[in-house]
């Protein structure tokens, strides 16, 4: 029996991030998971609304939690809801946590919800990010077993952005400073994963609207680092990150006189390719920075192991990574 999760796509997945939505929906059956879209869900308020008026902002988000808590899903008495978008994930978890911690807030929010015939008991819904479910509920071994066309030769910079592992309202599922789950997932698909030290840095978020200078610099740092590691693509798990790195790449190039051409893809798109699903069902072609050239690099043979730079005779031994940790490009 497949595991059933409430599915909260959020607005981005209907528009700019439709590729994320399509590919997530396409890989779900392969992973034996079922998404039950929440009935009549509404916007999570993104980052702006909370800055304007707190109570309506919380009530807006809580309405989705209330709907989710009513639905019949697997997972015992705590309904699980998947949010593929990092901002939605953060907002949903935050409201649940704040309502648990502050009974007065919970009461006020519930008064507002009552107008629509709804109520929400904090803690009754567990909010999960899509990546969390993929790597922890499905697991790397099960994923490896589904890989039909390993993505050999593709060099990937895994990019987490800032929201999914911080602040970990319901318990972070990965290291908040140097997460590794997406690295391992990409390795499982056969790609060559590069060390990407800026992997949890900010993409600029909505700074593009407020202070473009700041946003462009943040985006440049990410692109520059991926380029230094000769990544063919950056893989993301957040529509905001994808939009900024993809949509503003041209602006960065114009502003700094650079020539970056790094497609920004969703991890679900690459999972779909590796599972042998037709590219047409995975939302390819919607990116601004064309991914075709990068995808053409996928080979049928695993790339030869990079020659370890021959360490000099005097060289000191390098400490080994902890068990389970992934050493990059090896």
């Amino acid at each position, binding site marked *: 029996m497949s595991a059933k999760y409430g599915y909260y796509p959020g607005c981005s997945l209907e528009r700019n991030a439709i590729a994320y939505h399509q590919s997530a929906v396409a890989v779900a059956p392969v992973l034996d998971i079922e998404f039950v879209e929440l009935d009549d869900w509404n916007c999570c308020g993104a980052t702006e609304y909370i800055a304007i008026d707190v109570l309506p902002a919380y009530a807006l988000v809580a309405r989705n939690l209330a709907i989710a808590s009513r639905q019949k899903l697997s997972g015992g008495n705590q309904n699980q809801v998947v949010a593929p978008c990092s901002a939605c994930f953060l907002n949903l978890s935050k409201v649940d946590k704040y309502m648990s911690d502050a009974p007065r807030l919970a009461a006020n929010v519930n008064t507002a919800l009552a107008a629509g015939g709804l109520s929400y008991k904090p803690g009754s819904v567990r909010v999960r990010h899509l990546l969390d479910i993929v790597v922890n509920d499905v697991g790397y071994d099960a994923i490896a077993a589904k890989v039909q066309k390993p993505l050999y030769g593709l060099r990937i910079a895994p990019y987490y952005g800032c929201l999914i592992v911080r602040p970990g309202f319901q318990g972070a599922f990965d290291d908040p400073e*140097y997460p590794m789950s997406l690295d391992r997932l990409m390795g499982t698909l056969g790609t060559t994963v590069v060390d990407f030290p800026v992997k949890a840095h900010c993409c600029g978020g909505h700074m593009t609207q407020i202070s473009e200078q700041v946003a462009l610099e943040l985006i440049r*740092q990410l692109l520059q*680092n991926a380029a230094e590691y000769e990544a063919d693509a950056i893989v993301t798990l957040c529509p905001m990150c994808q939009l900024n790195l993809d949509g503003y790449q041209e602006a960065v190039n114009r502003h700094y006189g650079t020539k970056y051409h790094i497609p920004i893809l969703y991890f679900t798109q690459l999972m779909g390719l590796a599972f042998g699903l037709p590219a047409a069902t995975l939302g390819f072609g919607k990116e601004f920075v064309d991914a075709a050239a990068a995808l053409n690099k996928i080979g049928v043979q695993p790339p030869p192991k990079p020659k370890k730079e021959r360490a*000099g005779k005097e060289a000191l031994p390098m400490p080994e990574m902890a068990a389970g940790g992934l050493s990059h490009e090896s």
Partner: protein
Amino acid sequence: MSPERIGVYVCHCGSNIAATVDVEEVALWASEELGDRGVVVARDYQFMCSSLGQELIEADIKEQGLTRVVVAACSPHLHERTFRTACKRAGLNPFLCELVSIREQVSWVHTDRAAATEKAMAVVSGGVERVTLHQPLEPLHVPIHPATLIVGGGIAGIQAALEIADSGYPVYLVEREPSIGGHMAQFDKTFPTLDCSACILTPKMVDVGGHPNVTLLTWSEVERVDGYVGSFTVTVRKKARYVDESVCTGCGICTEKCPVRVLDNTYEAGLGYRKAVYRPFAQAVPKYPVIDRENCTYFQRGKCKACQLFCPTHPKAIDFEQKDEILQFQVGNIILATGYDLFDCRRIPQYGYARLANVFTSLEFERLCNAAGPTGGKIVLRDGVTEPATVGIIHCVGSRDHNYNPYCSNICCMQSLKFGHLVKERTGAEVFNFYIDIRTAFKDYDEFYQRVLEDGVHFVRGRVAEVTDAARLPGEEGKLIIQVEDTLLGKQRRIPVDMVVLSAALQPRQDSTEVAYTFGIACSANGWFIEKHPKLDPVATMTEGIFIAGACQGPKDIPASVAQGAAAAARVLGRIHQKELALEPVRASIIAERCSGCRICNNLCPFNAISYDTARMITEINPALCQGCGTCVAACPSGAITGTQFSNEQVLAQLYGLLLLNVSSGPVQQPQPALVPA
């Protein structure tokens, strides 16, 4: 009418009690109201614990023929002994004296004088009821075996061994590695005086190795401890060395000829290699090498024996047939000095250890500095040749951080200052220290800090956010960039360096909880061994006869470790000189007829005093090991365990006395002695 003649003594404790409790009133009430319950005299006095106060009690015992004494004063933790001893001097069995607390439990925690006075009366009344049921007890006398076991041959264990052995008593020193020396043997220089570590350590190692009173058991581990203070039976596994110590001359030819190179994660901290047959370092004590079976070609593939072939002794010292030996011996006391482990820096991935080549741990850096280390004492990058032009030293890695260890590791500030000085002295590189606070609190430590400041070492106050190789600004390419909020400037800074040293936390040994269990002592939540009292009894433990010294009790530097080693030795020597030890008779015992053999209590005892007699199918308690904590008494579902001085009858009588005042208007039922859970 009680057959006992009870004296009640109410202490003022200066104003500590008298300010909140009307002590005169309590004494008066006791003499007037508790007469029918056996109280024949009740007095108040300013300081009952003073000599005059004690003499008051002694005189009453003699003149009035008291058979029981109740002292209402401070907590029994402080003065129980004082008053028991006073009773004993006057010829009364000391266990017929009960100390009830009207300070910690009354005056210090209440403000309403009338209510506090009434509560003090209730507490006194409880004590009177209880003491009536006390039995005279005699302490248990156990002989003390003159030998001592010391576990761990670091500087703390070495110091303790020498103190005891020099006093003429036998010591067994058990060390799990092939040589004694501990962490100190890895260092080049030691703060604050910068003495050469080997120069001050090796004479002590040699003394231990050759001492007629020391039985040195290296490459060995304690497997079992039976018995109790005064006569422990210790079982030690002496792992096969595959080298016959009676023949080996320590010439080192076997090591030279061994074809297998093994990464040395212990002594060289992963920065250097050793052979499969090896001695960890030149000055190792004992000098005999060991064969590391896992990496030996002969043991793994059945061929090689180069070491044996070239061994110049007759007969050959290399003996592939050697087996582990199990040794058993008796000791009277045990000192644990098992030291610490270094925090695993991989747990903070944003600092890049094991990912970025030129990030080093503090122990790796010690090996870099050490003239006998992998680089011959040259401070160089991971390539083994390039000298760094800038070095960043990050403090508190894994310490003072709620994600890892909340505590301060105590030595890292000084160790980082030492590193800064050594870098300056040997390379002239720029050095940046990234610190939260500089803690240089001991003798000559702050002077050393001043000296390092004068060396021109830079200090940036702030916890480092990350160490990255992602260059962003000009001048950062090819460097490690330390991103930090300089909290004195109030600014984010990016400082490019060539080398980063992580001053990692000291942590309990990864097997500290198992070791604690073997010896029947307790660990804190962090895993450090717990001392009996943090201020007044820092090297004893709650288990009689087991002492702790050095960094196994908490992070500490060499001077403190040596002081504790010597202190533990002094405690043990005191014991040995007494020849016999009087144990408190407060302990649990089993009522055999009631024990169902359910074994619920078996694993609860923190002192390993409980064992199961399979033949009689009942549980037994070893009176010499039992410390009278009462855990088993409370846990026993059939009420088959009683604690002397804490029997159900005594506790219920005390409750009865406590409640008597409040219920005195109604009829009071005497407690049912058999009121135990079914």
